[in-house]
């Protein structure tokens, strides 16, 4: 494009009338007009990655699981969240360096997925399902009630907001979640991705009060409650090294009454699938 632009494109506005856009409008003070605080407008991406020194071996172990190193990116982002409680610019650079990717490539992935948090998460992440079915059963009320209850100075705690110093004991991040695949147990809440089923507004308030007080209420399905960062470490594929802790987490409850309802009904009424035939040979196929 040369300087022949007549400026008619924008309905006669002067924008585009000059040789270049910049000639027309002059410089903009980007920092001055930005709604985002200046410290968040990073101009030079050089972060201190020393916070991740302890997970380098783990990051390499993730890479070894896959035929292609880039497949390690999602678990690795979970891994950096286990350190910082969020995916920071430093976390992005760490993953990029480990996988020989550009930070922009990692950023593009990190911002696509809901579970990667840009703000530091509380000790606990409380996710309330507000999809249609849970909402109809009370999920919307639960979410609203928790927002009011955890809010301060008359302001509700909003989606992805944290009460308490993020990451400090007793801090809680609240979010509304899409369907958590526990519809027969709705309304459902997850804390650090462990299930708390069949909730009410009152039980949910009691749950977050306990979390705020530093307690670790037992989930209805899942491992004994730890914290958000430990959950992220598990999502990266790293499990408790102590055998007793490991067994306790694997053997955490899963068999809700609802889960077993059909199987129990069949047992009570003597219903079964037909027995296998005495012989069920594999079919013959032509040799190739």
């Amino acid at each position, binding site marked *: 494009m040369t300087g022949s632009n007549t400026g008619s494109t924008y309905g006669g506005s002067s924008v585009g009338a000059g040789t270049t856009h910049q000639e027309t409008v002059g410089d903009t003070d980007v920092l001055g007009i930005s709604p985002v605080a200046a410290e968040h407008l990073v101009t030079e991406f050089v972060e201190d990655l020393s916070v991740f020194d302890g997970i380098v071996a783990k990051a390499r172990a993730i890479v070894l699981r896959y035929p292609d190193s880039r497949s390690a*990116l999602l*678990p690795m982002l979970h891994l950096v969240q286990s350190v910082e409680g969020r995916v920071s610019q430093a976390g992005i650079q760490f993953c990029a360096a480990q996988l020989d990717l550009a930070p922009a490539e990692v950023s593009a992935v990190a911002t696509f997925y809901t579970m990667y948090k840009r703000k530091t998460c509380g000790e606990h992440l409380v996710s309330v399902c507000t999809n*249609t079915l849970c909402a109809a059963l009370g999920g919307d009320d639960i979410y609203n009630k928790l927002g009011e209850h955890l809010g301060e100075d008359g302001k509700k705690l909003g989606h992805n907001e944290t009460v308490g110093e993020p990451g400090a004991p007793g801090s809680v991040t609240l979010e509304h979640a899409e369907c958590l695949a526990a519809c027969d147990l709705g309304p459902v809440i997850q804390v650090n991705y462990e299930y708390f089923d069949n909730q009410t507004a009152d039980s949910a308030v009691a749950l977050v009060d306990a979390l705020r007080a530093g307690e670790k209420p037992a989930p209805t399905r899942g491992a004994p409650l730890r914290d958000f960062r430990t*959950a992220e470490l598990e999502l*990266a594929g790293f499990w408790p090294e102590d055998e007793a802790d490991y067994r306790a987490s694997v053997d955490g409850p899963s068999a809700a009454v*609802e889960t077993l309802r059909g199987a129990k009904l069949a047992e009570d009424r003597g219903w079964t699938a037909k027995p296998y035939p005495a012989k069920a*040979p594999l079919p013959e*196929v032509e040799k190739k």
Partner: protein
Amino acid sequence: MTTPNTPSQNPTAEPTINKPAPVTPVLTKRWLSPTSWSLKTYEQLEGYSALRKALGGTPEQIVELVKASGLRGRGGAGFPAGVKWSFMPPNEDKPHYLVINADEGEPGTCKDIPLMMADPHSLIEGCVIASYAMRAHHCFIYVRGEALHCIRRLNAAVREAKAAGYLGRDILGSGFDLEIVVHAGAGAYICGEETALLDSLEGRRGQPRLKPPFPAAAGLYGAPTTINNVETIASVPFIVNGGADWFRTMGTEKSPGPKIYSISGHVTNPGQFEAPLGTTLRELLEMAGGMKDGVPLKFWTPGGSSTPMFTAEHLDVPLDFEGAAGAGSMLGTTAVMVFNETVSVPWAVMKWSQFYEHESCGKCTPCREGTYWLTGILERMLDGKGTPGDIDTLLDICDNILGRSFCALGDGAVSPITSGIKYFRDEFLALCAKNTGDQNAATASPALAGAHS
């Protein structure tokens, strides 16, 4: 109008000579056992016996068996599993991959998560048999990240299976090698779409790929890949042990086998009921103790929010692939969400639309823009600012998304809206009641439709 609270048919009273029982626990039969997820329990209850049998045959025999069983994909689309497997090339010029879609997130769907928690070894055993049949030596189980306890149980199952020689090198002395990697997602509904799942598994944004090429030709890392749902693969060991004819004692000619129906919402006893395909809502409601507190049924989905809703007229529709399609919906994931008369259909539809808007990956314009405008219009209508013209606008937008979006997410997004308007147009009109007197509002320029006022 039928009354769902007092079902006229009592399943137990019917002749049962050749008819299967109303509930046929196969996939769910181990769930009542203590520590059903442990290898010890699994081995006591026929566990890994199907693997021994399968390894004694050839891969072609396994594919033929699964074809003969008529097993259809349990993730929603219902594609015949054996046929899908047979698309994998017979040679091994490139590595073959089996990928399990455990990204359960379709609203209402809650069958794979209890299965993976209660009986992870059945999925692992199915993975080994299916990988053997397709000559894959690397299998990935892509589990949605929020299902942490499933990921934990699956990892434990992989660990146990490996130690016992059911996984790893030279499995049970057969010479067949297989590694299974349990991979956690990170919260994106779109990754349940199989090609988006592959992109996500490759460490990218989960956005769908153009087909063809189909994954069997160019899937994970551009190599031959089959993607199957959890319930599909977990069915395979039972088919190997029982045979195709046994599997076909349940279900219908074209939709054979048992299926886990997940009944949720306004019923007395919600839960998981494994019944032969073709079971009706009337029969399921009987098992679930009828409508909660006797409040009548208003609408329900046969298989998740992406399947067009049904009403009390459809109590006797056989819930198999043909039956649900014949009545204008889809079987989907047999996620039977039941809503009673207290629930507003436009509200439910708005909530689902918000979900699709949030989960649209943004790759294609019809879905990205369409779900945004659909949600905006529905929110405005629920806010009491709608006009009757909005209903036409909604349907027009739906018409421009259905079949024109890159993947099925867009198609799913229009299902609740078009079916909701089809059966409950009056409720949408009622939202506009206070605006209908105003002719200007009712005939507002289409250019303004959808704009937030």
